[in-house]
């Protein structure tokens, strides 16, 4: 069975999704979903171990050899992403029970979990596949389920947020489809490894350049890279809490991984940075994203929105690392994908717990909440410190590599930028902390109790992980470095 794990990773949640529809009891469906997620986490762990010890795993679906059939191709880069997605999925699903019962009408809960599992299936499928068109198909699975989940938010603005995301997401997906189509047109193949071999011969053509451009724009929409981030703040702010946590920690990361895969493996470093000079486009966008979005975050009054804008800014760090076009920079990016998933996931889970008790995440409703929910707020503080990049947290590790990469290049302004945006993070995190800790509690808040254990435990699991990997980063950094070597191909 062990050699079938790559496909089982994706197909198990895919099978569970329709199963969810067949049952009526929310609890039962939740148990199945949670169990599934832990199983796929174990699978992802085994796969990562396999990849680290034995190298790339290729799995031919249907028994048809690539490029005729569809191939799953696991290397250090995407297995790490698989681990992130399934790990976050496991923790967040465990957390979801109460939060979902609280925010979603009871009779639709089985359907909600079905969408939930589909979203996870989609994300895993995108990550595992070695086929360009398959990426598109699974992207749509995850996107459609995401639209549906976002629309389930209690606030009516959830509907418009979902619609906006649907329109922008579909445009993005169609752009990706055009990009893939143009590449197919010039090479006759859809398999990524095969594309990588055949592209150099035609990389001089205008068609391929346009293809790369369309792919990049389409993926940037999904990554929420400025200025294509417009869908994200509303979507994150009004989606159900559990869904926000799942999406914030995984969706944009997976899209970014796909972008990396195309930039590095498929098109190759020489093409992406030598011919297209993508670094020249990414650099200013990342800089603006970091600065502008951090500042916008400071002025938000809804904490979920605040963190959403912070996410857009943090994506800027990841693209900044890529734009340096150096091994250290890319290591920083990949590490930040991993690290940011942990901390943002933890932060949104803490917010979900607050939502569960307070019923709102507006800043002025949180006055003095730290007294009532000390553990939840402690988790928020810990996550916030990680976002700032305080040492022993994962945020510090990412920042270390990014600054190191900028220093290697001698890009002092970029060093200053990274540092400055960390300070902006201090401001927006501290606004929340001050209100929660030092403002007197309002009368409404006087009866609020600490969040139940089933919400606290998963939250602290992620926060704990974000400190574990901050103190002992050997596992994450070594995997990230191997992933960089793999992505870079022979050029390093």
């Amino acid at each position: 069975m062990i050699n079938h794990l790559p496909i089982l990773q994706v197909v198990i949640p895919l099978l569970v999704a329709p199963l969810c529809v067949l049952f009526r009891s929310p609890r039962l469906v939740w148990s199945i979903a949670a169990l599934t997620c832990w199983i796929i986490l174990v699978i992802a762990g085994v796969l990562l171990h396999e990849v680290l010890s034995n190298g790339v795993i290729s799995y031919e679906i249907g028994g048809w050899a690539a490029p005729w059939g569809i191939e799953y191709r696991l290397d250090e880069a995407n297995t790490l992403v698989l681990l992130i997605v399934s790990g976050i999925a496991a923790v967040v699903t465990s957390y979801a029970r109460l939060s979902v019962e609280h925010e979603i009408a009871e009779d639709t809960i089985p359907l909600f979990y079905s969408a939930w599992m589909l979203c996870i299936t989609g994300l895993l499928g995108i990550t595992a596949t070695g086929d360009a068109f398959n990426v598109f198909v699974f992207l749509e699975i995850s996107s459609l389920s995401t639209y549906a989940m976002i629309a389930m938010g209690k606030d009516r603005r959830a509907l418009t947020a979902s619609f906006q995301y649907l329109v922008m997401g579909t445009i993005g997906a169609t752009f990706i489809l055009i990009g893939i189509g143009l590449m197919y047109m010039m090479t006759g193949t859809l398999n990524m490894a095969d594309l990588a071999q055949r592209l150099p011969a035609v990389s001089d053509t205008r068609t391929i350049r346009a293809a790369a451009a369309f792919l990049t724009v389409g993926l940037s929409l999904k990554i929420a890279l400025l200025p294509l981030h417009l869908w994200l703040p509303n979507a994150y702010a009004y989606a159900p809490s559990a869904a926000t946590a799942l999406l914030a920690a995984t969706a944009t990361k997976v899209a970014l991984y796909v972008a990396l895969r195309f930039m590095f493996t498929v098109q190759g470093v020489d093409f992406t940075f030598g011919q297209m000079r993508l670094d020249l486009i990414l650099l200013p966008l990342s800089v603006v994203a970091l600065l502008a979005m951090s500042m916008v975050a400071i002025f938000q009054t809804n904490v979920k929105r605040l963190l959403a804008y912070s996410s857009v800014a943090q994506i800027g760090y990841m693209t900044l690392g890529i734009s340096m076009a150096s091994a250290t920079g890319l290591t920083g990016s990949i590490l930040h994908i991993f690290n940011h998933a942990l901390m943002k996931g933890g932060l949104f889970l803490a917010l979900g717990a607050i939502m569960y008790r307070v019923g709102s995440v507006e800043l002025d409703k949180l006055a003095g909440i730290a007294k009532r929910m000390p553990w939840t707020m402690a988790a928020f503080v810990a996550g916030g410190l990680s976002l700032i990049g305080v040492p022993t947290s994962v945020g510090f590790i990412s920042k270390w590599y990014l600054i190191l990469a900028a220093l290697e290049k001698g890009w002092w302004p970029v060093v200053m930028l990274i540092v400055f945006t960390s300070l902006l993070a201090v401001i927006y995190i501290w606004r929340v902390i001050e209100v929660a800790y030092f403002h007197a509690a309002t009368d409404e808040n006087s009866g609020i109790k600490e969040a139940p254990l089933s919400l606290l435990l998963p939250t602290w699991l992620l926060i704990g992980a974000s400190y574990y990997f901050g103190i002992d980063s050997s596992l994450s950094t070594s995997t990230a470095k191997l992933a960089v070597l793999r992505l870079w191909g022979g050029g390093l």
Partner: protein
Amino acid sequence: MITAQTAILLAITIPLLAGVLIALTGKHPNLREAVTLLASLALLLTVSSLLPAVLNGQQPILNWIEMLPGLSIRFQVEPLGMMFASVAALLWPVNSLYSIGYMRGNNEKNQTRFYICFAIAIASVMGIAFAGNLLTLFIFYEALTLSTYPLVTHSGSENAMKSGRVYLGILISTSIALLLVAIIWTWQVTGSTEFTPGGLLNGKLQGPAVGIMLLLYMYGIGKAALMPIHRWLPAAMVAPTPVSALLHAVAVVKAGVFTVVKVIVYIFGLDLLRSESSAQWLLYAAAFTIIVASVIALRQDNLKRRLAYSTVSQLAYVVLATAILAPLSVAAAALHIVAHAFGKITLFFAAGSIYTASGKTMVSQLNGIGYRMPWTMGAFAIGSLSMIGVPPAAGFISKWYLLLGAVDAQQWFAIGIIIISTLLNAAYFIPIIYAAFFKTSDAANTHGESPLPMVIALLITACLTLLMFLFPQIPLALAQQLAGVGA
């Protein structure tokens, strides 16, 4: 007997453990404070158990986890760290005693949070003192900032919040914006962040880069309060007095200058700085801070604020001493860290004692108070003498070595600064003592001395100030070891 490695680990875990226990016993004040006191004594024992080995020239090392590839959390007990740790460990029990009196006497809220944060801050101080490389130091440096933030904003008032923002803003932003960058740059240049005798950067970095690196470090270490990044220190005065005492005598500011000395001695190395003209600015920056801060102190009527600006100028002494770059002056810097700690904590204890007993905070209100609170004001006088640098107080020793070092290095400019600032010190301390003992009080004051624990505490620190003058052997030996000059 426990091994040195265990002792290092214990020194950090005892206060942390105490924090947990305090949290658990928060509902029972007596038990909670017993925990604090016991833990502080246990820490004192642990730290002193390390002393003999260090005096014998050993430097116990403990490598903990590898945080980044090739970069672990590492502890190494060298003379300066030993000195710093001993001072902190010695003053924690005293400060705890004092805190109990103060917090109860003023009926402060959130006392449990206070003691927890205090314990964590002490753990961070131990981590800073024993840090074996820059990364470790940085981690505990940030932990110290964060754990003292709730102490500064303790009262929760609008004013406290504002000051808290200044405090956190300056300390976090300088450390992340400058210190972290400097550390990563060092790592990029040398592939290491370890404290190396003779200087890690020596021979690896030349030219103006040295000056820039020095700039990053010196202003990155915001806790050393070099002007113009000193503002957090007066702002932090909104905190309860035991915190001010801790911040200004033991933990935070000393962590700052301690880091400055360590960076200059072990990261740059005296030779490198001496040979680079781009690094000479430090001396003048320190001199500027000494004079300006003293002048400002002279004009403060609020006692705690006057003490705060006095601290700013005294910290700059340490920096100045180090910047002279002579072995003797480096020893003086180390000594001054200790001497100032004892003296300033006494002064703050006295200020808190005055506030608890009489509610007074202004210098102009203190006429004749010496008769009502003889012990407190007596101790205050001893502390002041130490600040000015007059025998029989500890301050004299460090100032003496400072002068020796300056003469040795023929830094006439520095000598001039020292003399002027001594006069200024005298100008802002002597009037207080004079008013307290020789002026008659204008209002009908009925208060007496403050609660007994506070009086005991401040007497202990005053005695320590005198004792260090009389028996300076141990700190002297450590300081000489650090500077590499024979006893």
